């Protein structure tokens, strides 16, 4: 099946890559792969800097954080909290295999070994996995188009991703919906192996930032606790910024601006 699709892909690619954007052309495996990969790397890219607000609502508390985020590939990232004031300057640095936390209140840096990285990232419904994961979704999953057509007046593809036989991933299945017109993702649903929905990632606020069309807003809702959620919103986003590995240093971790 795949080989057949690959042959067809070559043929179509020879014709016109632009045909991909036409509503009614069938999506070939390789370019579907690109789309999924793109979605996966949408907000990570090769290098980026962003200004984000994260609002978390849980059963016991709610809070809102403003943060500045830099990333270089998947190996390096730096997150610095700007507000609320009492947490300003708190930062997390990932450089290669090492993760460091800076705590401005006590002016100390602690090294966090991978086995101690507790599930959630900064208390949100995102996991550390989501943000520091190095392997790409396309390497770990096989995919097929489960639906193609109109949903609520919008032409979309829906993909079903199933983990490859030995891929070290916890999900039993992932479903994604992508808009045909601009290849923007609308939602991603994560299922466990019994087929139960565990969490949903919903995208919205599509606009151009840093020269690319991106969804500025992401909402995570856990299926078992509908009253809880996390909303991540990008206010600014630049891609291909001029940073190299040396930027992701302990000294920068501790810098206040």
């Amino acid at each position: 099946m795949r080989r057949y699709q690959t042959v067809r892909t070559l043929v179509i690619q020879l014709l016109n890559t632009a045909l991909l954007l036409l509503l009614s052309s069938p999506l070939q495996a390789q370019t579907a792969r690109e789309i999924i990969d793109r979605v996966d790397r949408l907000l990570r890219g090769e290098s980026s800097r962003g200004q984000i607000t994260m609002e978390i609502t849980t059963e016991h508390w709610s809070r809102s954080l403003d943060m500045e985020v830099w990333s270089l590939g998947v190996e390096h990232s730096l997150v610095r909290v700007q507000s609320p004031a009492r947490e300003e300057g708190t930062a997390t640095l990932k450089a290669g295999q090492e993760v460091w936390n800076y705590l401005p209140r006590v002016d100390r840096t602690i090294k966090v070994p991978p086995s101690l990285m507790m599930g959630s990232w900064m208390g949100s419904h995102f996991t550390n996995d989501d943000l520091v994961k190095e392997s790409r979704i396309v390497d770990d999953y096989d995919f097929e188009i489960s639906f193609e057509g109109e949903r609520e007046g919008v032409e979309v593809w829906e993909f079903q991703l199933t983990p490859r036989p030995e891929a070290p991933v916890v999900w039993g299945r992932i479903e994604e919906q992508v808009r045909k017109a601009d290849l923007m993702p609308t939602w991603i649903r994560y299922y466990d192996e019994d087929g139960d929905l565990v969490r949903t990632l919903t995208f919205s606020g599509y606009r151009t930032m840093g020269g690319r069309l991106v969804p500025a807003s992401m909402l995570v809702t856990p299926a078992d606790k509908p009253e809880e959620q996390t909303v991540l919103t990008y206010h600014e986003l630049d891609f291909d910024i001029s940073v190299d590995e040396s930027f992701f240093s302990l000294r920068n971790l501790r810098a206040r601006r």
Partner: protein
Amino acid sequence: MAHDRLWWRVAWRNLWRNRLRTLITASGLAFGYLGAVLMVGLSDGMLVELIENGTRLMLGEVQVHSEDYLPERNMHRTIGGYEGTDLEIFLNQISSQEDVTAAAPRAYGGGLLSSGEETQAALLMGIDPDREPHVTTLLSRVVRGRPLVTGANEILVGDEMAEQLGSVLGDEIVVVAPSSDGSMGNDLFTLVGTFDTGIPAIDQNYGLLALSDLQFLMAMDPARIHEVAITVGNAQDSPRIAETLREFLSDTELPVQVSSWTDLRPELAEMVSLMNAFHFIVVIIIFGMAAFGVANTMLIGTFERRREFAVVRALGTAPIGIGQTVVYEGIVLGMISLVAGSLITWPILVWLHNSPIDLTQVTSGFSVGGAQWRPVLRVEYSIESPIVAGLGLFLTSILAAVYPAWKATRVLPADALADR
């Protein structure tokens, strides 16, 4: 009956006249009594030692939590919910209960301890340094440094944890813990001491802080705690005491759960029941042997008196008279022996109870069923065991004397006399 009084006097005189025989028999009974009671005391002592080592170290015999706290131990589920409760009043209510010796408040958090480049996951436990020593021996296990003082951001860790962190006394430790408002509570603490409980699960994982310091770190109101640990008079009675306390506290309208150590540490409870089983068998064996010794002696002694009985019969005594004499002898003998036995036994028991024999040169301490056992020979005494032992041996001696006496009375005097 006049006859009765006669037999009593005869019995008494028989005993008196054969002092050596009486002495031998009585000492057998007395020392058998000592052995049996001592064994029960020692095995009870081992059992109580085991329980108390399991409970007095950190658990307490009874614990109070918010109804929804166990088993997940969600940090938000404090006693009295988000508002908490007036600690002074609550603790006093509990302490005022008859069987309760003392109560101490605790709060818990899961977090990280960091020293230099080393970071370790830790279970943070906030304690009241004034109240805690009345309930547990935890603070007395501080081997280096000193216990905590409130309000100074001080921390105690286990010696194994300190090693893993590479910290020494006086070092600064960064404590990070998710707090109740979702932020990452963090602060600097000073390592003022290390403890050695002998239990790796504690020494490797726990960090002790002052209760108010932990509450502040975790953005918790001072009225919010997770647990009250309680020590009671008699550890083995804990389930009943927990029940009573539960009923009492239901009046306060706080949705709480009161658990005894038997609920919280079922493996310890199983250990205790196994030890009970072993001890039961052991005590049966010892007691059996003691009773046998007494019976044997009485049997021999009484069989040797066949001729004596025959003479008495020949003189005209009714068979029943001999029977009565022997029974009364047995009674008097039994009582004398037990009095003598008690006189030897009780001082020994009390002495051992108050100054238990320390075996630390012979063997070191270790953990059994999650409890730490220090090698000390301890003796517990109760009212029941000496009484049961005493009664048992008493009856044994009487019965053992009666049989041969009865046999002797059935033989015609002439034959018995001719036999020798």
